[in-house]
C-alpha cells in the first residue's frame, strides 16, 4: 500500500486581528490507500481544519502535505480545484446538494467541472446513482427525497469521478440513527470495494465502523489507534447494531 495522505509537520494558524490562533500544530500523519479512518475530537480540537486541509479546501500555514505523493501545499487555486475535482469526493453533514437541481444533475456536477462530454456524464452519473441504490430517484429534487436519500445522492456525487479519497464530514450528523447505520453500511461496502474513506465525526459509534481512529486535541494528535471495526471488516455485516 502506498501513502495517500502524508502530513509532515502540518500547522495551521488563523490570524484573527492581531491574535494568532493555532488550529493545528505540527501534525504528522500518514494514511495509506484503502484505509478507513475516523478523525475524532471535541469541537475546537482542529478536526475541521484538518479535514479542510486534507480536502484541499484550505492550505496549511506550514509543513508539507503530499496527496498520492504529490505536494499540494503551495498549489494555485486552480490546481487545488482540479485536485478536489479528480481526487477527492466530499460528503457533508448538511448534504450540500443544489436545491433546484435534480439528483442526476447534482451527481453530474463534478463531471461538468471535469469537462466531460454530456453522453459520458450521463452514463457515469447514472452508474453512481445505481451504486448507492437510487436508480429510481434520478429525476427527484432534494426536497422530494428523504434525508437518507439525500445523503446517498451526495455519496453518489462524491463517487462519480472515481476519486482516490472519500472525505466525509459528520456524514450522519443530520440523519436519524437507523438511517445513520444504513449510511455506515454503505460506507463499509464502498470501503470493501477499495475506496479510501476518511470520516470526521464526534460520535463514538460511528467511529467504531472505521479501522483506525485518530483523535485530535488542541490541534495535536492525542491518539492514533488501529481497531477491529464494529461490524467485522470488509463489508461482512452481521446485521444492524442495537439502537
Amino acid at each position, binding site marked *: 500500500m502506498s501513502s495517500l495522505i502524508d502530513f509532515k509537520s502540518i500547522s495551521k494558524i488563523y490570524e484573527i486581528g492581531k491574535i494568532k490562533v493555532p488550529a493545528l500544530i505540527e501534525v504528522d500523519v500518514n494514511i495509506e490507500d484503502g484505509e478507513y479512518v475516523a478523525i475524532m475530537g471535541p469541537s475546537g480540537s482542529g478536526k475541521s481544519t484538518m479535514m*479542510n486541509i486534507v*480536502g484541499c*479546501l*484550505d492550505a496549511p500555514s506550514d509543513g508539507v502535505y503530499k496527496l498520492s505523493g504529490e505536494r499540494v501545499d503551495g498549489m494555485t*487555486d*486552480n490546481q487545488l*480545484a*482540479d485536485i*478536489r*475535482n*479528480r481526487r477527492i469526493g*466530499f460528503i*457533508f453533514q448538511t448534504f*450540500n*446538494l*443544489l436545491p*433546484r437541481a435534480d439528483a442526476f444533475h447534482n451527481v453530474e*456536477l*463534478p463531471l*461538468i*467541472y*471535469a*469537462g466531460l462530454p454530456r453522453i459520458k456524464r450521463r452514463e457515469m452519473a447514472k452508474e453512481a446513482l445505481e451504486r448507492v441504490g437510487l436508480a429510481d430517484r434520478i429525476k427527484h429534487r432534494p426536497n422530494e427525497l428523504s434525508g437518507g436519500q439525500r445523503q446517498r445522492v451526495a455519496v453518489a*456525487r462524491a463517487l462519480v469521478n472515481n476519486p482516490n479519497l472519500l472525505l466525509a464530514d459528520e456524514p450522519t450528523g443530520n440523519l436519524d440513527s437507523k438511517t445513520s447505520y444504513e449510511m455506515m453500511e454503505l460506507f463499509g461496502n464502498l470501503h470493501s470495494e477499495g475506496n479510501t474513506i476518511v470520516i470526521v465525526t464526534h460520535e463514538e459509534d460511528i467511529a467504531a465502523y472505521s479501522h483506525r481512529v485518530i483523535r485530535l486535541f488542541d490541534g495535536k494528535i492525542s491518539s492514533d489507534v488501529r481497531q477491529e471495526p464494529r461490524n467485522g471488516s470488509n463489508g461482512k455485516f452481521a446485521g444492524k447494531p442495537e439502537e
Partner: protein
Amino acid sequence: MNWMESIAISITSILNQKLRSSLTLLGVVIGVITIIATMSIIKGLKNMMEEEMSGLSAGVFQVQKWDVQIGDDHNRHRRKARPNIGPEEVRALKENVPLARVIAPEIWKWNAVIKYQNNATNPNCTVAGGVPGFVINNGIEIENGRELTEQDVQFARHVTVLGSSAAQKIFPFRDPVGEYVFVNGKRARVVGVVMERGSMFGGGSYGNFALVPLTTFINWWGSERSWNVTVRVANPEKIKEAIDQATVAMRVVRGLRPGDENNFGIWHSDQLIQSFNEITKWIRVAAFGIASISLLVAGIGIMNIMLVVVTERTREIGIRMALGAKRSSILGQFLVEAVILSEIGAVIGVIIGVVAALLLGKAANLPIAVPLWSILVGILFCSAIGVIFGTWPAWKASRLNPIEALRYE
C-alpha cells in the same frame, strides 16, 4: 465548464426569480425601446423625404445664388456680395453642360395671394416664374389642363398653373381652368392645376402655389431677383459629372480664377438628405443620451441584483468550488447570468420598440422603417452593459473562500 452549462444554469436562476428579474430588466427594456423607436421614426421621416424628393433625386440638380446652409450661417457677409444668377448663366449652362437634358430657370416670390372673385388663398402663397421644363424638373404633375408652353414664355402670356391646395381654396366648387384669377394683383388665366401629392407638408411646395411664365414674372415684378436653374441630367448616374460640368461653366461665365471660391451654389437631393441628417443629428444624439442614461441605470440595477444573487447563492458557490469549480468557472457563470439578464431585456425592448414604431408610423402615416443597425446596436449595447456591470459581482463570487462559502447560512 462549458458555456451551454452556464447558460442553462443562468436561465433557470433567472426564471426562479421572475418578478425580481423583470423589474431589473425594465431599465434595459426602456433604453432599447428608446433607441429602436427613435431611430425607426427618423428613418421613416427620411424615407418619406426621399420619396417626396423623388422628382429631384432622379437626377436633377439646381444652380442657385446661395449654398444650402443649415443652422448658423458664418459666411453671411460674403454671401451678400454674390451676383445674381440670370440669363447669362442659363446660356452658359445650356452651352456647356452636354450631360443635361432639361435646363429650366425659375424665379421665386413668397407671401403672395391669389384671388378669384371673393375667394383668396392664404397670404403665404408662393409664386414661381418658370419655363416648360419647370414641371418635370420639380417632379410635379399636371392634374387638369396643361403646363406652360414655349409660346407662353415667348409672348409673356398672362397665364398661370395653380397648385392643388390654392385651386381648392379659391375654386371650391368649379373647374378653375379657363377662369381668370389675380396673382398678387395681376390678372392671369388659369391653364392648369398641379396634381395633389400625399405629403406631410400639405401638398409640399406646390400646394399653395402658382406658376407663371418666367417672362411674365419679370414684366410684373421686375428682374432684380436671382434665378434658380434646375438641371435634369439625361443619365441620373452621371449627375456628379454633370455637376462638375455645370461648375466649370459657371466659373467660366463668372470669370473666376483658379483658387477663387465659387460665388454660386449647386445642390441636389443628396444634399437635402445630408441636411436632414444634419438636423436630425441632435435628435439622434438626444435619443442616445436618454437611452444611455436609462441603460446606465439599468446596469446599476443589474449589478445590484447580481450582488444579491451572489450573496444568496454563496453556499451554492461553495459547493461548486468543493466539487472542483475553478474561480474562472464561477466568474463565467455569473457573468453569463448578467449578460443573459440584460439580453432578455434587450430582446423584449427590441420587440416592444419595433411594435411601438410601427404603431406610431400607422398613427402618423409615416413610412416607418426599423433600421437593422439600431437593433444590433441595442443588443450589443446590452451585452456590454451585462459584462460591465456583471463583472464586479461575478468577480466577488469567484473570490469567495470555499470553506466560508460552504458554511454560509
